[in-house]
Every structure is written in C-alpha cells, then in structure tokens.
C-alpha cells in the first residue's frame, strides 16, 4: 500500500489494468481447468469402468466357450473309452490318457487339460503335473462339479499362474470321471484387453501381479496402488486413484474378480490421466498464449492511455511547480477537448489571475496599507480611471541639502530611512497611501484609491502624526548627538484623475491634476511662513472644531492666477469627535 500511495498515477493505471486482465485470464484458465479437467477425469473413469465391463464379459464368454468345448470333448466316445479304463487296473493306461489330454489341449486351444476319475482323483494331465494320483476334490471348480455333477468354472492359481478352469463330468453313461480344461489369464489376455479398450489391465492380489499389459519392469507401482487405502471406504472397489508409472500419471480403477485364491483377486484398470488431460493442457496453453498477447496489447494500450491521461497531468504538475517557484508567466498547452484541456485552460486562467494579482499587489503594496491593497485587489476600488476628490499631502525635510553635505552618506540615508519609516507609519495609521518618495520628502494620498469621506481630516491627522513622531525621533537623534530634523507639510483637497498610470511593466496607481500641483506649492509655502503644517482653505473648511488652526494668509502661488488662502494647522485637541471608519 505504501508503494501504491507513493506511485505515480501512470503506474497505478498501468498496474490496475494489468491486475484486471491477469485476474480475468487466471479466472478463465481456472474455470477451464475445473470444468474440462473434471469432465476429462469423468470420461476417463467411465472408460475404465467400460473396460471393466468388457473384461467381465470376456471372462464370461471364455468360461462359456471353455464349457462348450469341454462338454463337446467329454462326449467324445474315444475319450470315454480311455477314461473307463481306470475302472480296471489291468487295462488302465495313464500314458494314453495323458496323450489324449495333449490332443484335446490342441483341439480346444487351451493351456491345461486335466482328467480325474469320478471321485476327483487326477488320472492324467497335460502339461505333465505332479498331482497325478492326488485328489483334486477340494479344488474349485472340481469341488462344485462333484457337488452338482455338472459343469463348473473357477479362476484358480496353478503353479503360480492364473487359470480359468472349467470342470465337466464325463458320462459313460453315468459319471465316469471329470474333464478339466484351463485357459491361462496371462499377459496376452491383458494385452488383448488393452488392444480392445485402450486401457492397461493388470490382474493382481496384494501379494503378486499375475498378468499385466505393463512390461515386467513397470509393475512395481501396481502393487502399491492396490495396497493404498481407498479415500472413500464406501466405494472401495469402484473408486479411482492416481498412480505414477514412468513419470506419467494413470487413473486407476480397482475391480474385484471372483476367484479362488488365498488373497482376493483384483483387476487394476488404468488409463493415462496425463494423456486425458493433454487436450486441456493444449487448450490452456493456447488460452495462455492468446491471453499473453491480449495482456501485452492491453498493457500497451494502458501505457498509451495512461500516457495520454497522465501526460497533461504531468504538464500541469510541472506548471504548478513553476508557479510554486514564483514563475507566474508559465502556461500549459494541453490539446484536445476533454476535461484535461479544460483543466489546463483553467490552470492558465488561474496563473494569469495570480499574475495580475501579483502585479497589482506589487503596484500597491509599496504605497498603501495591506487593507487598501486588499480592497483594490478584491475589486472594490475601480482602477480604470475616475475623477475623485482627494486630499494630497506633501512633506519635505527642511535644510536637507545642508544636512546632506554635513553627514556621511550612510548616516544620511540612515536618518532618512528612520524618518520615512515613521512618516509612512503615520500615513498608514490614517488609512492613507504613500504615493511616492521625493528624495527628502513623501507624497501621500487620502481618499484614493479607497474612498474616504473624511480624507481631509485624515490627511491633517497624518501630518500631525508625522510631526509628533518626528519629535520623538529628534529626541533620539539628539541623544545620539545627531542633528535634529525639521519638516514642512502642505495639504490640499481637490479633484484629480485617479487610475493606473505608466507602461505595462511599470504601471502604477497614481493621481494627476491641478490639485496635486497646488498641494506641492502649499508645502513650499511652509518655508516662507515658517509654518510646519499648511493647508489650503479647501482643507481647512473640511476640518472639525477639534483641530487647532493658526495663522491664515492669502498668498499668490506660482502657476495660479488667483491667490490661494492657506491656513496653519497647529494641533488637534484631545477630545476627538466620532469619525466614521474607512
């Protein structure tokens, strides 16, 4: 999950795509394995059971054929005659009987011919047997034949080989003996079954393998297969299991065979599990191959798609970084008509907005208080240019030229900056805007860009503030042995044109008009009148009673036809009437 949260969008889309396709592919393969595999095993199991049925039928047919052959042979008069010789010890001819047995063996195409007397004692055998003269009465199928004096069949072990033996009575006209024919159940029988059914067949007990379609070398796992406990005890004889022979897996079915052995005889029927599943595996390989190609194509599509999608996103991220670093000129170029292009355009608009904002901020920030700047930026103040009535304040340091010659430049600038700091603070304290520094002076605006009804009073208050602050500053300067500063301030209220002025890169908020010039002239008059604060009559008439006014004079001003009345402002009384804010 940590990787996921840290990885790029592109990687996530890519991985999600791949995981989805892989899941679908694996699910498909899994279901095929489940359905087809199950079907294949079921078909194989059915084949094995069919083989079992074929085998059972074959055993029955063989028994029937054996019985028919035996009955036919037993009816042979010559045989009866030879059989009957045993009644008379003088004429009994065992050699003749044995050679007759050989003849019958060939006639009937069987591997074993035994002859007994009517009580079951062996008279002759082909091939030769050590049981001559011994009673076979207890041996199936002769036991059943003796009991019923009728034909009987059984599977028995003779000299470690498996035989299907039939015993039939020889009538002459009563039972004068028994003829037994035996057919071996050997490898050739298993091979024949395999040829017919394509299943491997083995006849075995838990102790030994009697016959098998397997070569002798491959028979060891067969006994193990039989001794393995069945998974389901209820269906012991019908359940299948897997046995590995020479690295190949075989589905094995154990069928009981009715026989007379010391251990139960079984037929082990086997079909190749791997071969049965081969078509499934081929199918799976094909699906896997098609799936792999599909996966590859899908991944490539995924890469292209995620690239298409994340490309613009990365472009946006890069642009963001530019903006973060302060490069507001950067723009993204996202093609197309989808949401991403819209996003890019929005980003560009945002960046443009930020840039405008920054430029305006730069324009105003230096001259107006934060509140004013915010008001301008929020659009509450129009900047396109308008006629406004404002109060303009000009301030100047007296005797600055002499001072500049007297002081080291660093000391001079230090003094200036100390003073300007106080001056700006005084202006901003009254909501004014420091418009410009004039070397040794300050120009400030009141009533623009933020409209203020009492801009005249504010301007006068700011002037009084400057004077007061200068007094404090001078006290400090005197303690440092520095010369005191003296200032003159002129204020006029009049109509101006206000707005953004200047070429694009250096545009500034400013005011132009006669009122500005007049304010400057009034400031210059402070020297003549030896006043600190002089205001025009337009200002004085706007002042409340709390302001203490001094001398008044009608003076001619350069560039003005008519003389201008100026009034000296001395102070403001302590009782301050309520003033509307802003």
């Amino acid at each position: 999950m940590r990787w996921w949260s840290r990885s790029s969008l592109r990687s996530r889309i890519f991985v999600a795509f791949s995981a989805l396709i892989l899941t679908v592919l694996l699910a498909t393969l899994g279901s095929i394995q489940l359905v087809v595999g199950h079907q294949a095993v079921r078909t194989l199991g059915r084949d094995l059971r069919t083989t079992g049925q074929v085998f059972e039928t074959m055993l029955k047919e063989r028994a029937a054929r054996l019985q028919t052959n035996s009955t036919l042979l037993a009816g042979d008069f010559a045989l009866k005659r030879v059989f009957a010789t045993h009644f008379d010890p003088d004429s009994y001819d065992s050699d003749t009987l044995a050679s007759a047995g050989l003849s019958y063996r060939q006639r009937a195409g069987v591997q074993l011919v035994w002859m007994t007397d009517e009580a079951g004692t062996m008279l002759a055998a082909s091939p030769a047997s050590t049981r001559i003269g011994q009673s076979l009465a207890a041996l199936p199928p002769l036991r059943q034949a003796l009991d019923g004096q009728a034909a009987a069949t059984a599977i028995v072990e003779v000299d470690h080989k498996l035989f299907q033996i039939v015993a039939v009575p020889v009538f002459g006209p009563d039972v004068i003996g028994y003829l037994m024919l035996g057919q071996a159940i050997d490898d050739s029988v298993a091979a024949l079954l395999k040829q017919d059914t394509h299943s491997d067949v083995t006849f075995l007990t838990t102790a030994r393998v009697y016959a098998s379609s397997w070569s002798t070398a491959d028979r060891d796992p067969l006994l193990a297969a039989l001794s393995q406990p069945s998974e389901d005890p209820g269906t012991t004889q019908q359940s299948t299991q897997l046995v590995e022979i020479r690295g190949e897996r075989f589905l094995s079915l154990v069928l009981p065979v009715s026989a007379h052995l010391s251990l139960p005889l079984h037929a082990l029927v086997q079909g190749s599990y791997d071969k049965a599943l081969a078509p499934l595996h081929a199918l799976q390989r094909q699906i896997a191959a098609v799936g792999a190609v599909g996966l590859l194509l899908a991944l490539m599509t995924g890469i292209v798609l995620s690239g298409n999608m994340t490309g613009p996103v990365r472009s946006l991220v890069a642009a963001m970084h530019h903006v973060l670093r302060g490069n507001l000129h950067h723009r993204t170029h996202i093609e197309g008509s989808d949401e991403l292009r819209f996003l890019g355009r929005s980003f560009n608009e945002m960046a443009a907005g930020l840039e405008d904002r920054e430029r305006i901020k730069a324009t105003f920030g230096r001259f107006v208080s934060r509140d004013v700047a915010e008001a301008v930026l929020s659009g509450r103040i129009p900047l396109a240019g308008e006629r406004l009535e404002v109060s303009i304040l000009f301030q100047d340091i007296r005797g600055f030229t002499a001072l500049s010659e007297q002081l080291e430049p660093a000391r001079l600038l230090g003094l200036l900056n100390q003073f300007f700091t106080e001056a700006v603070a005084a202006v901003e304290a009254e909501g004014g805007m420091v418009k410009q520094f004039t070397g040794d002076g300050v120009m400030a605006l009141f009533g623009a860009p933020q409209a203020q009804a009492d801009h005249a009073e504010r301007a006068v208050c700011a002037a009084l503030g400057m004077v007061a602050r200068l007094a404090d500053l001078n006290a400090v300067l005197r303690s440092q042995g520095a010369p005191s500063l003296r200032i003159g301030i002129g204020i006029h209220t009049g109509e101006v044109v206000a707005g953004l002025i200047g070429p694009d890169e250096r545009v500034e908020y400013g005011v132009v008009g006669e009122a500005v010039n007049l304010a400057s002239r009034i400031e210059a008059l402070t020297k003549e009148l030896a006043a600190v604060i002089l205001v025009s009559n337009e200002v004085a008439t706007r002042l409340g009673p709390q302001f203490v006014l001094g001398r008044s004079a009608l003076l001619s001003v350069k560039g003005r036809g008519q003389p201008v009345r100026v009034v000296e402002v001395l102070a403001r009384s302590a009782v301050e009437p309520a003033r509307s804010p802003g």
Partner: protein
Amino acid sequence: MCRHVLPTLFLVLLGLPLEVRAAVPAVTGSVTGIDGKGIAGAVVFVQAPAAAPGRDRPGQVVDQVQKTFLPGLLPIVVGTSVRFPNHDQIHHHVYSFSPAKTFELPLYKGEAAPAVLFDKVGVVKIGCNIHDWMSGIILVLPSTHFAVTDAEGRFVLEDLPSGAYTLAAWHELSKVKPEDTSQSVQVGKDPAAVSFRLPLSAARPRPAMHGARAEP
C-alpha cells in the same frame, strides 16, 4: 416323470405272470429308506447259496424304443444272455464300461446286434454312444431268486425251497453295497418276512432328454 412311469409299467408287466401262476410266497417284505418310506425299483435277491451256472438259461431282452432302453432296469442271473434289439428307425450304439461287463455294439438297427452274455455278477450300466441321455442298468445277480419292489417298496420272493438263505438288497442310489445289506432268512412252510433299510444318495443329474424322443 418318465423315470417313474417306466419302472412302474415294467413292474406291472412283471407282476402279471406272478398273479396268473398264483405261486406260493416264500419271503415277503419291504425295502424302505432311512425315512421309512418304501423304495420302488429296489431289487432283493438271494445272495447265497448262489445258483449253479447253467447253460440253458433263457435269454433276456433290453429293447430300444423311442431312444430309450426298455426296461431301464433288468435283473438277471449270471450266465444269462441279453439281446439288444433296436426298434427305432435310427442307429444305436450300445456300450458299457462297467467292470462287470464291458462291451460295445457299434452302430446297428433292428436285430443286427449279437446277444451279450453276462458272465460276471455286478452292475452293468449301459448307454448309447449316440444318445447321451439313454441309460440303463443290467443287474447281474448270483441267483435266479430275486424280486423288484413295487411302488410302495414291497416285494415277494416265490418258489423258494425250504432252507436257509442270505438275502441282499440293491438300489441304483443306495449308498450301501448289497453285500453289506445281507440278511439271513429261514424259509419254511410259512412265508418269512424280511425288511431292508437303504440309505439313498440324491438323484444325480444326467444328460437331459428334453423332448428328444419326438425327433428322429
């Protein structure tokens, strides 16, 4: 079915002359099984003293009619010749592998086969090589005095001079040899009574006849 009918028929035929002659019964009795039920078709005969061999014994006949030996059981005294006429329209091949008399009358019709002399006491089982189901017994006895039990297992021995005799009983399915059944009996003016009890084995299956007689 046939097996029961034929001996009965035979017994009836055999009994007729006895009734006509109205001979004096010397020994009467019965042959029963272990369960006490009378056994039909058993033969009771005088074992000793044995009859002297005679050359002029009348010949006997085992006929072949409809692929069946008739009678199925023929008791004879030793030294008797038996003819096997064939009254079917087909050939028969009569044989016996019995130690008491081994003989063979290869394929013949009518009266073509010579008579066979039975010169040894014992059971002679006869068959036909061509027809597996044809089976008969010729019981060769040491004496001329014998009787076959009726359906109830009763027998009557007649014309037996006074004296001491040893009697024995035989049956095809008897588990006991005749010599082991022998009983002594004193024959006087009054009829003597003798009972035999024979344990029988179960009837043995034989090649079936299944309507074979209807075919040629």
